[in-house]
């Protein structure tokens, strides 16, 4: 009898441990490969690592060097331009398309997948397509000339001052359909009774959207902002494929800066410090968002 109860006890205890055991490999992987690695990179950013990691502590030297580099300032300025335009234009296009599609449009089932398919492509594919499409020699400019618009000029991709805007165009092309889907889901979630009541009160369509619908879409705006800003900060592939960071350094972003300082210029300490700054920027946006999202649920 005593033997049997001991066995039962053992089995229930095992049952209690199994869930944690099952979770532990994933958890260990995340702790080591994400949080451990973050700490390691953080540590490297305080050392004088060059081509290989070194463990000579130099304090904030790398950060001082980083913020003194014109190359880094170019990257930061470009990110500010790119992120602002990217977020604003994607949101504007996404919201417009969602509102227009929500007017009982015939063929909505055809249009929606067309708006959204770029999201399934790799940024390298997008970059390749736009790189040649925007190339003045063979692309859009050439086509316009052949169609008789001789004075048409569109050489942004070769222009130091304008190249960053071609990154915006390609990135907007890729993600604005996704933003449309987010807003459309938000619109479809709005109770029609509210809209009908407002219409009976004599509100015009314009006022209906401005005063009622758009304020109700606040959660969708927030999600769109968070997703787009984190995509903007992480943008790397598109720049590599579209301009390679050029002409010159005209389209360098922090992500490409980090890569070239760490792996091509062999200034790993500086590269690590730029990665830390990227992480802190994203964490400042994501942490409150995730915290709020997780807390809402019971």
């Amino acid at each position, binding site marked *: 009898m005593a033997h049997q109860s001991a066995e039962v006890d053992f089995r229930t205890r095992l049952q209690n441990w199994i869930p944690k055991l099952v979770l532990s490999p994933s958890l260990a992987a995340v702790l080591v490969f994400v949080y451990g690695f973050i700490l390691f990179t953080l540590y490297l950013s305080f050392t004088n690592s060059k081509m290989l990691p070194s463990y000579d502590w130099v304090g904030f030297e790398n950060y001082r060097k980083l913020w003194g580099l014109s190359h880094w300032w170019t990257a930061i300025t470009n990110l500010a331009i790119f992120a602002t335009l990217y977020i604003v234009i994607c949101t504007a296009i996404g919201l417009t398309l969602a509102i227009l599609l929500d007017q009982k449009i015939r063929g909505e089932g055809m249009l929606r997948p067309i708006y959204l*398919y770029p999201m399934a492509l790799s940024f390298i594919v997008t970059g390749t397509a736009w790189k040649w499409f925007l190339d003045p020699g063979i692309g859009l400019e050439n086509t316009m000339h052949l169609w008789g618009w001789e004075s048409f000029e569109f050489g942004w991709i070769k222009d130091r001052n304008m190249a960053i805007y071609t990154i915006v165009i390609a990135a907007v092309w890729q993600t604005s359909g*996704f933003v449309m889907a987010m807003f459309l889901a938000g619109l479809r979630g709005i109770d029609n009774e509210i809209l009908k009541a407002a219409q009976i009160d004599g509100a015009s369509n314009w006022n209906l959207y401005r005063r009622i619908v758009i304020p109700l879409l606040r959660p969708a705006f927030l999600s769109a902002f968070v997703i787009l800003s984190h995509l903007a900060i992480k943008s790397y592939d598109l720049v590599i494929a579209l301009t390679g960071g050029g002409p010159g350094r005209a389209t360098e972003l922090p992500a490409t800066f980090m890569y070239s300082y760490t792996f091509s210029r062999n200034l790993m300490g500086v590269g690590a410090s730029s990665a830390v700054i990227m992480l802190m920027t994203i964490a400042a946006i994501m*942490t409150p968002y995730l915290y709020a999202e997780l807390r809402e649920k019971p």
Partner: protein
Amino acid sequence: MSAATQETAIRTGRIARTFIYVVLLVFALFYLLPFFVMLVNSVKPLSEITEGNMMALPKELTFAPWASAWSTAQIGVEPTGLRPYFLNSLFMVVPAVLICTALGALNGYVLTKWRFRGDTLLFGLMLFSCFIPFQIVLIPMARMLGIMGLAGSTAGLVLVHVVYGIGFSTLYFRNYYSAFPTELVRAAMIDGAGFFQIFWRIMVPVSGPITVVCVIWLFTNIWNDFLFGASFASGSKAPMTVALNNLVQSSTGVKEYNVHFAGAILAALPTLLVYIVAGRYFVRGLMAGSVKG
């Protein structure tokens, strides 16, 4: 988004409606144009691109650029075409997706049906890992793969993608299983079913839709990855995206635009096919990926 039939209360006039259709169609053209350009120019001889109009249909239809992109084009130093790299990507993406989905299902099951103190915090830690800029892990990861003897190998890339995919796959299954009645699990426990029995007999049979969502999301993400591929598997083990970039950026010889376009479509084909076949699930994955479950 199945509520497409829901009545919209807004009434619009005829002129306004025409305007709406025009705007919607113009945007449809904007999204289709780059793909049209890729497709049309991938079946033209090179001279028609360099001397002709990029928007024009081919005068002479040729599939030579496709054949070249697939099997003879110069990638880096070898004239292998994209085929070996296509296979690299396939051998990377299939195991990574399977492992990641299985782990995500188990994690989601534990986090919703076998809850314990601090589980939300652990989930939060996993979830945050989806959004980190991967630059922060590149240096230690390169060293770790070196130590493990996986540097420059497909197996190494599988490991990397599994580790950074777990957050999303766990998110999907956790949100899905949290809507599943816990009473059923309790009843099975009282009947003496164990942890794995409940998982196999009760959870797995209802997991069809979310598995499709998760598989599509991971497949698209991993297939399209460039940063990890370029960092950890250059040379003959490079994935498709890296090889395509090498093809397009190569500075030697004549720029064969038609081959570049054919290559780009080849690189896009697997994810595009998935999108065409199961677009609904792809959109669901995207929406859930913006965290709202």
